[in-house]
């Protein structure tokens, strides 16, 4: 899996606004290779878990129709500056990626 997940988390009042960008092809399995005419196998992130200071705040299951290089935005109430956000993602091949950020 291509390296990289970028996370930015900013505090607005007592709500943390978290934005994450993941590098992933998100291949649907429905496209054909232009040269061989064969279907390109599906390859997509299907599980995402986000934690705040180690506590799960978001668990997501994705299909192949989340757009390429997925963007994920969510909000956490009661968060404080300096709290740690960690996001772990796994794709349908079992490849993992993760990122972390402190709330600013």
């Amino acid at each position, binding site marked *: 899996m291509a390296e990289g997940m970028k996370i930015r988390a900013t505090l607005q009042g007592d709500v943390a606004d978290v*934005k994450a960008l993941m590098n992933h092809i998100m291949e649907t399995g*429905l496209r054909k290779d232009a040269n061989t005419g064969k279907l390109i196998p599906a390859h997509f992130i299907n599980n995402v878990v986000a934690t705040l200071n180690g*506590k799960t705040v*978001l*668990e997501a*299951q994705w299909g192949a129709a*989340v*757009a390429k290089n997925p963007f994920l935005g*969510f*909000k956490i109430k009661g968060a404080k500056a300096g709290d740690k956000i960690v996001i772990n993602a796994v794709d349908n091949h079992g490849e993992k990626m993760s990122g972390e950020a402190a709330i600013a």
Partner: protein
Amino acid sequence: MMNQLRRTFLKSTGAAGTVAVAIAAGLLKPGQVLAAEWNKVAFDATTTADAMKGLNVAGATESKDILIKAPDIAENGAVVPVEVTSKIPGTTSIMIFVDKNQNPLIADFEFSNGAEGYVSTRIKMASTSHVKVAVKAGGKAYTATKEVKVTIGGCGG
């Protein structure tokens, strides 16, 4: 009957084996909560109704407290920004569907420990379609819909 039992047994021991291997490999810390198994039935469904059944939100009630922010017209179906806000108290999950996609279920988001009923993402749409959202709150299911016109589809080849 016997066969069914055997299947269940094999399935459960298989899963336990995977966990043990993952712990041994240091991938999983003991005590770390495992994400729920990927809902293949719902994601493989070819109609929104079947996908909703697979997620236990069939028969959801229409709600005006679910706001779907998406473009009226998306030029590129491969990247359609969608933002969902549920104002329903006690929202625990948000699901997004595109009726006309080969597999309508796009994603299922579950919130806990202070995460609000809000999610923002970008999705693929094969053609002009209704974007449907289902919300679980307080053990009940709610739904809302918005049409997005797509100029160039973003799913097939």
